[in-house]
């Protein structure tokens, strides 16, 4: 409760200060004059940005954010630059970027054109699409194998909507069920109440990794409606945009990006010391060459 209060107070304060100072367009200028640079983190977006057991943020995105902070230090010439961190949620991340409370967010934020009107995204650094978690011995390999089967998705997600609409358009002939939350949907597949769980594949890998019967489960199918995740910062700031994209491009060229990917997606990671076993998607591999920041629709 107390945290929530502090958090609400912060948001309020942030919005208040924004109205009196006006939005700061130039992030580098701001860092130079204030001597401060603030990274946003998510509390539980495993493995992108989340809190470890010591209460400090870590993750694939968080490492990218730290690289960006290093570059900002160089660019502004301030070795004494204080790098601060601030937790954000999916509800407040965009307002806090806009009003300057945080300077850059490296989490699991979908880069779509609606958000593109409010913030700017860097080169897409992850792709996720709706795929299916099934029992490995079920024989289900793709969406075409789901005729007459029960498919569950979590209620209150766009994945449910996507699957419903697709089932109607393409007549895949599966029965779509809505689960209360991700954990329930997983339980339904494990207990045989449903044959497949349709969700963002990265979430499925995470759920599979945390399941007791991990080896008996598999993530299958072509990605449906692929959406990119990207690092987010303030709009109309071409200098900072160039800096962030340079950091990403460099890390891709030096192989650091792939190393980080292997570390966070394909080896054991805290807090449960599980391996997500999520191979790099075709879309991401392509984008490591294309270096595009193209949004989803």
């Amino acid at each position: 409760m107390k945290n929530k209060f502090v958090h609400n107070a912060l948001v309020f304060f942030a919005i208040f200060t924004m109205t009196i100072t006006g939005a700061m367009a130039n992030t580098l200028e701001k860092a130079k004059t204030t001597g401060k640079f603030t990274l946003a983190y998510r509390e539980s977006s495993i493995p992108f940005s989340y809190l470890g057991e010591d209460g400090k943020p870590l993750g694939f995105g968080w490492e990218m954010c730290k690289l960006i902070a290093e570059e900002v230090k160089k660019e502004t010439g301030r070795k004494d630059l204080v790098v601060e961190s601030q937790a954000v949620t999916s509800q407040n991340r965009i307002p806090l970027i806009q009003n300057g409370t945080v300077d850059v967010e490296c989490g699991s934020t979908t880069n779509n054109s609606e958000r593109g009107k409010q913030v700017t995204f860097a080169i897409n650094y992850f792709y996720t699409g709706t795929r299916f978690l099934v029992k490995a011995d079920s024989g289900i390999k793709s969406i075409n194998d789901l005729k007459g089967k029960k498919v569950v998705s979590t209620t209150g997600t766009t994945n449910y909507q996507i699957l419903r609409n697709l089932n109607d358009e393409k007549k895949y002939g599966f029965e779509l069920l809505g689960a209360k939350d991700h954990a329930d949907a997983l339980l339904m597949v494990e207990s045989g109440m449903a044959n497949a769980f349709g969700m963002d594949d990265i979430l499925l890998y995470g759920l599979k990794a945390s399941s007791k019967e991990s080896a008996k489960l598999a993530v299958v199918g072509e990605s449906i409606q692929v959406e990119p995740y990207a690092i987010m910062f303030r709009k109309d700031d071409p200098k900072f945009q160039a800096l962030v994209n340079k950091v990403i491009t460099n890390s891709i060229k030096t192989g650091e990006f792939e190393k980080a990917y292997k570390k966070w997606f394909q080896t054991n990671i805290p807090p449960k010391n599980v391996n997500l076993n999520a191979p790099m998607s075709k879309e991401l591999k392509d984008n490591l060459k294309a270096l595009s920041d193209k949004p989803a629709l």
Partner: protein
Amino acid sequence: MFTLDWSFLSKKVVGTQTYFSWLMTAWETTLTISLFAFIIAFTLGFLMGVLRTTQNKYLVLIGNIWTEIFRNIPVLVQIFLWYFVIPKIFPIFSKLPAFALAVIALGLFTSSRISEQVRAGIQSIPTDQRYASLALGLTTYQSYRFVLLPVAFRLVLPPLTSEAMNIIKNSSVAFAVSIAELTMYAIQVQEETARGIEVYLVVTALYFISALIVNLISIVVEKSIQIPHFIGGRK
């Protein structure tokens, strides 16, 4: 501050379905679950309540155990037990659709509450009446059928109304086992339409109207069966 925008109701979902027609289907599901669950709850609740007032200690024990089992476990846990656990132990239940399992869970949970009210209703009748009816030569069955139950039923009608209203509200737990009723509609549609306030307003109104209808029905029933000079009767 904000303006309500109801235009989402006429938007297409899939095929000929709109958010309005989906809402109506969801409402129908809520009412159907509630109706079937209440039939189970009323039948078994009445039976168990009566058993608990008999002179046979085994029948009393059965009634008591029944009531305590279903009364002491939260309804959400019960619905999960019926959905995930019972079918593993008794495979025959895995053939039942989720809808039936939710109806059973909700019906049995409410039956324990009705059993308690029926027991209280019968026990509130002075014991003289039971003894008088037996002294007249009526069998136990006849004393219940012609003396105790007609009075007890009228006594418990008000709490029964509450239970019938409760069952409609409790039916929202069926959402937890993937039944597309009103609560599920609310959660999914507010995500799809981004009109959370409107969605919750309309769903709340439907729950309210449903409970109100039950209340009106019960008033009619109460009026039609009242006994002059008796509880709720004409003065």
